């Protein structure tokens, strides 16, 4: 599986934008370009592996310092350029997500990767709160700090319905070790406890996904697949423009009302007690 990390991201970036190379001045690990979606331009962003990266711990598709600040750079530029435009004309942002994790490196910790990741999440959230529709397309893996840095601040998240999709807080081997289980036990548990699952259909039960998309082979997008996905992205953009600019849509779905009952009850209780405190 590991040799495929990032390939899907690159394949979909190319299918949707016609481009496949980093922008001038960017590291080899970030693809960023403006391309048409429907009848408007959008900013497309993707993090990809680069075996030649000068940071050894991002070479397999992890998100590190350069990646985070490069994403933030492009996002801030678009926010600034569109500041005076009405909401309907603010460019959409499409994050294509296929990231193994955050970078697990000493260089990264020393130079404050926590802060780099925060700056990128800030830029994504700021774009959303300014009225840019921010849409994430999970094309492969979306792990932990990698997803928090690149994609999780979107107001609509779409994912392929495919066994190669993994959205999770930690990869199986590490999660098994820390929770003192075997990988087989962990997989079994996921079927009973949806938030623990590595299966995207269980993830869909959490109410965080806007839509599951079906394509034959996510590694090799056909023209028909690309057109279909483009339509789904346009639909998500329109839906985002109609909705709130916060993440409240995550809690309004029927799936969330079931799976996130406890969290929803906590919010209601806190609001009730807040007034009298």
């Amino acid at each position, binding site marked *: 599986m590991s040799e495929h990390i990032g390939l899907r991201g690159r394949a979909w970036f190319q299918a949707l934008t016609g481009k496949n190379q980093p922008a001038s001045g960017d590291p080899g690990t970030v693809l960023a370009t403006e391309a048409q979606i429907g009848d408007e331009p959008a900013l497309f962003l993707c993090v990809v592996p680069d075996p030649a990266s*000068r*940071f*050894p*711990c991002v070479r397999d598709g992890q998100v590190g310092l350069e990646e985070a*600040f490069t994403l933030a750079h492009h996002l*801030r530029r678009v926010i600034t350029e569109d500041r005076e435009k009405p909401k309907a004309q603010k460019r959409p942002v499409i994050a294509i997500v296929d990231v193994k994790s*955050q970078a*697990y*490196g*000493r*260089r*990264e*910790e*020393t*130079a*404050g*990767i*926590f*802060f*780099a*990741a*925060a*700056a990128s999440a*800030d830029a994504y*959230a*700021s774009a959303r*709160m300014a009225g840019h529709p921010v849409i994430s397309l999970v094309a492969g893996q979306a792990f*932990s*700090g990698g997803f*928090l840095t690149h994609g*999780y*601040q979107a107001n609509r998240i779409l994912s392929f319905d495919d066994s190669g999709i993994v*959205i999770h*807080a*930690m990869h199986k081997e*590490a999660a098994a*070790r820390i*929770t003192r289980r075997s990988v087989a036990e962990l997989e079994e548990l996921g079927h*009973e*406890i*949806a*938030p*623990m*699952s590595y299966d995207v259909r269980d*993830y869909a039960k*959490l109410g*965080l996904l806007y839509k599951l998309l079906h394509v034959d082979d996510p590694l090799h997008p056909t023209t028909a697949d690309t057109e279909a996905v483009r339509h789904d992205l346009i639909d998500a953009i329109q839906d985002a423009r109609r909705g709130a600019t*916060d*993440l409240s849509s*995550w809690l309004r779905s029927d799936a969330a009302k079931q799976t*996130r*009952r*406890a*969290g929803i009850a*906590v*919010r209601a*209780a*806190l609001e009730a007690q*807040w007034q009298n*405190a």
Partner: protein
Amino acid sequence: MSQTSFIPEFVSRKSFIELDGRRRAQSLFDEGTWKELVGPFDRMESPWLPRQGIAPQFDDGCVVIKGKIGGMPAVAIALEGAFQGGSIGEVSGAKMTAALDLATKDSEAGKRTAAILLLETGGVRLQEANLGLAAVAEVISSVLALRPHAPVITLIAGTVGCFGGMALAAGVSSYVVMTREARLGLNGPEVIEQESGIDEFDSSDRALIWAIHGGEQRVGMGLADALVEDDAEKIKATIRGYVQADLRPEYRSQQVELYRDRIAALDTSEQIDPLNLRQRWNNKTTGGLR
């Protein structure tokens, strides 16, 4: 020094680190002004832990206290490092997000309400994995929604430290306050050693850990704003100062070009010397009271 100060100061001072999360949060408020919300008697606990044979806690390891600090409305949200490593689950995450959102609502209505996050946490609770990760994304979003209206102050006192996704919440805060005993980073030393090998990070090297993640380093390199002693009165005064401070036109996590250039200037052919980096990055352009 006065005549009586031959009794060392640390004998009479009240330690903050020795307090649990609840008492830490209480200690920040003006006397008689605070109230805990959705406390242990409300029994809102994790629905996921018992199903995995783990005892839940009636407050899910998260304490929300509302009251006044320096006469101004404020809410403190403390993660209790002694319960499940201070990890973020569905319930503790919802408490944090809801408190931040209510502070935003009051602030937008003209009643500026600051938030103080007391973070002692290893990050996402793996027994609630994806709901914990989503909760972190929501907390980050809610911090950013409040930040233009009222100060959001992260206080990391120790000794658990602040790691994982919640380190991003610290990163987007208006101000970060740390003690020398506190640590702040995305990945803890054990995780790095496990994922990238002992050559990358020797997690038994205590000096290295403090040199990289410690409060003195984070404040020294400009990624945190104030280094405080483990003294409850001094910490209370520092937090009060930030609660009362004017809002800033720009926050550190918006200074993308400055930090992008700094990363571009790093020599990555070998490991980065923390002390050298501190000297190069030490600046007065970022957050904090000056």
